[in-house]
């Protein structure tokens, strides 16, 4: 029987990569559990409240978006809107051209991966350097990140050292500290020479218009301290209603994603630098990006827009741990990706419709999600949609005959009693492909159809 692409990818995955992904994920999950339950008596209550706040935002984006825009503009920020990936990239380029800028340093933002900003800018003669260490390594390797928070969870130090040597960053040395120092030195020069610093935003407050950016490395700080212009690319769903809600969300984000109480740096950005400050951007732009989010908003899976990109669902997912991020063939892997990626693909939904199937619906993701997204329900809805749109699904047995039998008691009972034949058939002759496939790696239990009903009838007539 044909099987699914993600399953095939998992099968081919190098054991070292699988081990790195498994161990990294498990560590992230264990740290999350420890810090949340060590610090708070009822973390699940916090998740539910945060989920309600985000759901409220999602369902009131028509009010919040203009409100955020007005706050930003009041602080001297230029606000742009980009309906598509192309429009977002074009907006960035236009800002750079208007300043005669040719060099950008980039802090980590998933939206820019969605739009393919880096390659687009390079094609247009702009040097665009990733500054997050993991993303930098991905960039020099011409690779793709495999986790939304830990982009090189799939790489080991030897691979990184070889990449650094190929990129002219020194003779082969796989000591992690040496690798990090080299990156520090190299990127320092890039920050200081850059014209524009680009960041994303983890949150945007509708009350004050503040953007919040969280990092551990200090790269976003440097993007905002050295270049003279700041561009922030932000998905339209990143809004929080009130400043005070940051108290809840900042307490959940780092704990959920990396097991830290807070990331090392939490930046609250409201506008260009103050008049007396020599360092930092004199000009600030925010680009609100749609790129399929309004499609998601219109769908029955809009709850996924609550996502704050913490990565907790990836860390706990047993399927992600076996397959790794690259198996998902899209910017967002893991449970969140299995919902978001096919939906963001718009008309190309069918090309990623297998992602929602890569799940046993175990619900671990829902249990760890800081905004309580019912991911299994959303995966189920997408399976229904894929079937309705006639997307073929290799390996999924057809259920029509089953449904017929299961709605006709007499036929069901006949099958129960008749099925005993299976006990006597060699597996290869069993007329149900799914069963044959299953029997390939499972010992089959003995068919005992009818035995219970007979026993019960006898018991009742005694």
């Amino acid at each position, binding site marked *: 029987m044909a099987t699914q692409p993600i399953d095939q990818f998992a099968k081919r995955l190098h054991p070292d990569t699988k081990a790195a992904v498994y161990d990294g994920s498990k560590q992230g999950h264990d740290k999350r559990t420890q810090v949340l339950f060590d*610090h708070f008596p009822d973390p699940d209550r916090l998740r539910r*409240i945060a989920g309600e706040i985000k759901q409220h935002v999602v*369902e009131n984006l028509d009010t919040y978006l203009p409100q955020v825009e007005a706050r930003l503009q009041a602080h001297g920020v230029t606000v742009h809107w980009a309906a598509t990936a192309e429009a977002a990239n074009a907006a960035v380029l236009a800002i750079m051209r208007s300043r005669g800028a040719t060099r950008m340093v980039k802090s980590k933002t998933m939206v820019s991966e969605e739009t393919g900003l880096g390659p687009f800018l390079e094609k247009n003669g702009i040097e665009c350097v990733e500054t997050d260490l993991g993303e930098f390594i991905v960039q020099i390797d011409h690779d793709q990140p495999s986790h939304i928070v830990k982009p090189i969870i799939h790489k080991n130090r030897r691979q990184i050292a070889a990449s650094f040597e190929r990129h002219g960053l020194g003779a082969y040395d796989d000591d992690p500290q040496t690798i990090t120092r080299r990156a520090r030195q190299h990127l320092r020069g890039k920050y200081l020479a850059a014209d524009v610093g680009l960041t994303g935003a983890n949150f945007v407050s509708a009350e004050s218009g503040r953007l919040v950016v969280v990092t551990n490395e200090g790269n976003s700080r440097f993007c905002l301290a050295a270049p003279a212009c700041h561009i922030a690319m932000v998905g339209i769903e990143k809004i929080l209603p009130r400043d005070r809600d940051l108290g809840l969300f900042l307490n959940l984000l780092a704990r959920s994603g990396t097991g830290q109480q807070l990331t*090392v740096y939490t930046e609250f950005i409201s506008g260009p*630098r103050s008049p007396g400050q020599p360092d930092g951007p004199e000009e600030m732009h925010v680009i609100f990006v749609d790129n399929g989010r309004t499609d998601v908003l219109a769908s029955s899976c809009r709850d996924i827009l609550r996502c704050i990109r913490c990565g907790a669902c990836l860390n706990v997912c047993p399927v992600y741990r076996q397959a790794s991020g690259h198996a998902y063939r899209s910017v967002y892997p893991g449970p969140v990706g299995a919902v978001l990626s096919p939906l963001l693909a718009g008309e190309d939904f069918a090309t990623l419709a297998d992602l929602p199937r890569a799940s046993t619906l175990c619900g671990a993701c829902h249990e760890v999600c800081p905004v309580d997204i019912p991911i299994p329900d959303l995966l189920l809805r997408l399976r229904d949609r894929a079937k309705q749109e006639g997307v073929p699904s290799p390996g999924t047995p057809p259920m029509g005959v089953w449904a017929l039998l299961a709605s006709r008691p007499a036929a069901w009972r006949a099958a129960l009693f008749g099925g005993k034949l299976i006990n006597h058939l060699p597996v290869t002759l069993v007329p149900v492909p799914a069963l044959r496939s299953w029997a390939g790696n499972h010992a089959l239990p003995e068919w005992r159809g009818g035995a219970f009903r007979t026993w019960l009838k006898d018991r009742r007539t005694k």
Partner: protein
Amino acid sequence: MNTDRESILSRVRGALAPLPYRAALPDWEAELVVIRQARGMVDAWTLFAERLRGVNGIPLTAVADLVALLVENGWRHGYCDPALWPNLASAFPATITVETMFDRARVDDYQFGITRASLAIAETGTVVLTDTGTSRRLAALAPWVHVAVVTRDEMVIDVPQAVAALPDDPNIIWCTGPSKTADVEGILIEGVHGPGVQAVLLLD
């Protein structure tokens, strides 16, 4: 991109139109997110110092201790916010040279940067830098050592209090320990793009 603005907003409205009602905004008590260890805390500095050490930061309560730290580690040249320098200069030996101007062309000359923080958060070991309060953004960021100077009355206990205290300032940074990464095989390395040493000097 005005047409994109209209098209996005119109798509948002269209997407939400069929909803029979919109999810309400819940309220929540700040109490819920104050960590166990900070409840009923009396001495904020003690908790702060403990949490700061927990993220490998260095709490200091005397300028002499700061000087000792610099001397011990061979950090002999750095920058200090000119507004702070008069309070500290007398404790510094001649073997340590301090500039009160920051030259970004010589960014790697400065082994340490001493700048002003506006607030400290006890339950997380965090110091808060503001744009208007930080003489040079680069001075607090680029040198290997950052010393944030804060006064005893500029302390709050928990994150909700710190959020409530956010001033009207274009760039506020909560710094919780030295910069770090675990991107290489999950191994923790300190000192990435930001400082590798985060000290906090408490002045009364």
